[in-house]
């Protein structure tokens, strides 16, 4: 019993990391149908910039805020410099541009910072919390709480605010959105800035657990993308549930079956789900998107 609980704690911790990355995908996807493969790099930047500003002597909360703001600015710059000039290009080209951007960001990071792994202290210490014979670290609760907070924030943003609806309208039909007076260029800028900020926020939360180096973004983006696909691309609820499910699959497989197969089982489950529900668990049923 305590073993099961330990596996679930592990699954929730890892799953919340995936969920945070997956949530970052949603805004840009909702605004432009583009899957932003530089999202993992935003997470990495959040961690790396916090590490170096913290080492430079800033208090941790301030370092985190600096990291989120700088990363957000990089997201806006990515939109202005790479995505906007290619405005008329098909979505696939834009996705390839984001892959290129991720390589550039990774290369620049290893030149500007370094190639070592880094970490900063957990927010509430490292003393594990004991629950019925299982243990969980306080930082895991921060990550799970952070994922929930971002989820609630995005949910309200997309369903309750005019700006959020403008973002959705832009994705649905850019010309029509412009006709009803939505500044679609501004919506794109906003969505890249917000996505980058969410990514950096994720990086700040997960670094004490996962550690950070210039090359951690790729693996994070891949898992986050898988989680988003499982839950349904573009839906914050899907990102949250998809991430947590993926984490729990992995932990339970590693715990009960074999750690050799943990990733294989997780991906087989994703394939099975997508086979039955191609839009993911909570994906919209619209058929006009290809």
């Amino acid at each position, binding site marked *: 019993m305590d073993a099961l609980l330990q596996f679930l704690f592990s699954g929730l911790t890892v799953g919340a990391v995936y969920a945070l990355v997956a949530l970052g995908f949603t805004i840009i996807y909702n605004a432009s149908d583009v899957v932003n493969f530089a999202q993992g790099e935003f997470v990495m930047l959040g961690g790396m910039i916090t590490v170096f500003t913290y080492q430079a002597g800033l208090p941790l909360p301030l370092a985190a805020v600096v990291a989120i703001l700088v990363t957000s600015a990089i997201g806006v710059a990515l939109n202005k410099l790479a995505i906007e000039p290619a405005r008329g290009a098909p979505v696939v080209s834009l996705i390839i541009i984001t892959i290129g951007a991720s390589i550039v960001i990774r290369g620049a990071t*290893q030149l500007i910072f370094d*190639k070592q792994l880094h*970490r900063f202290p957990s927010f509430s210490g490292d003393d594990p919390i004991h629950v019925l014979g299982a243990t969980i670290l306080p930082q895991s609760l921060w990550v799970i709480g952070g994922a929930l907070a971002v989820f609630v924030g995005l949910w309200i943003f997309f369903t309750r605010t005019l700006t959020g609806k403008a973002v959705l309208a832009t994705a649905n039909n850019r010309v029509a959105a412009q006709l009803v007076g939505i500044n679609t260029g501004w919506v794109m800028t906003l969505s890249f800035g917000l996505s980058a900020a969410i990514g950096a926020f994720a990086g700040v939360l997960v670094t004490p*657990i996962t*550690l950070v180096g210039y090359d951690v973004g790729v693996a994070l983006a891949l898992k986050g993308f898988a989680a988003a696909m499982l839950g349904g691309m573009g839906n914050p609820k899907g990102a949250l549930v998809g991430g947590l499910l993926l984490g729990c699959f992995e932990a339970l497989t590693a*715990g009960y079956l074999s*750690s050799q197969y943990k990733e294989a089982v997780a991906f087989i489950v994703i394939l099975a789900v997508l086979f039955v529900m191609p839009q993911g668990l909570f994906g919209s049923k619209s058929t006009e998107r290809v």
Partner: protein
Amino acid sequence: MMSKTTTALATLAALGALTGAAQAEIRLGVSVSATGPAAFLGDPEAKTIEMLVEQLNEEGGINGEEIALTLYDDGGDPNKARTFATRLVEDDEVVAILGGSTTGTTMSILSVAEDEGIPFISLAGAISIIDPVREFVFKTPHTDRMACEKIFTDMQAQGITKIGMISGTDGFGASMQAQCKEVAGDHGIEILADETYGPQDADMTPQLTRIRNTDGVQAVLNPGFGQGPAIVTRNVAQLGFEIPLYQSHGVASDAFIDLAGAEAAEGLRLPGTALLIADKLAEDDAQYEVVTSYTEAYKAKYDQDVSTFGGYAHDAFALIVDAITRAGDSEDPQAIRDALEETSGLVGTTGTYSFSPEDHLGLDLSAFRMLEIKDGDWLPVE
């Protein structure tokens, strides 16, 4: 008349000496993975070799000849490593090659070196590089198998016979896992649990819970490098393990203690080199001088701490310089190879090297030192 001839002869001789000096440089080739996924290996290696070449040339080179270094960055890609090795031999006409940060890139360079008859000192770990012995291929790092043997010897001394293993699935972890399983029986060690994790995994508590719930496990061994071992160490502390944890030489660096946290890493043991305890070596230690001068010079030049991997490059360079000095002919790769094979008792940062026709690694278990983390610092156990 007589004096005129002498002057002419002297002028000729002087001219000859001048052109001779201009030509006399020793062309040394290096291909390491200074960027890319193996950058943590190749970056300190490249920096070390650049620093040492600079130092040597300032001191007048080898027998008055300076070293002309050609350094390529293969980015950890075996295909690029092969291209660069070929270019080093054909275009740059080097007399020896150092490098091959990973086993993959080493295997590419190795075939070129063997075909062209150029001595090559590899900086990678796998035992297959020097077993079977290849005529022109040598290497400086210990093998994984030696690390396993060192760890198991220490376990035996502690009366540990049953262990659980948790290994990374990256090349290093997988290779060492296989080697450890092969030699465990020789040391009376039984592996009761054998778990793995992906190199980028964030939490290993499920695997460790399985090990903890396996009856009779007396110690945990974690072959791997990168962030995995740091996370395993933190998870072991989180789960409150009462049994000792052994890590591999792959994480033997001060940075590891920072990543894992001094509290979580307390009491952990691993086989490391003298480099890690440079400040604690006795002055009469055979490696004291070479280790201290290398760590001080590196720190002064790059403002970074040395790593075991930079140490491998340091030793490879020391070996080739020693061989060229003894070979007497800096133009003949065959003579350099022969001199290299006769290396005896060369003290490096990793250990003391003595090559023979049967042994192109030249280190024994004594090169490893069993270290324990105590109050956030390394402490020699023996």
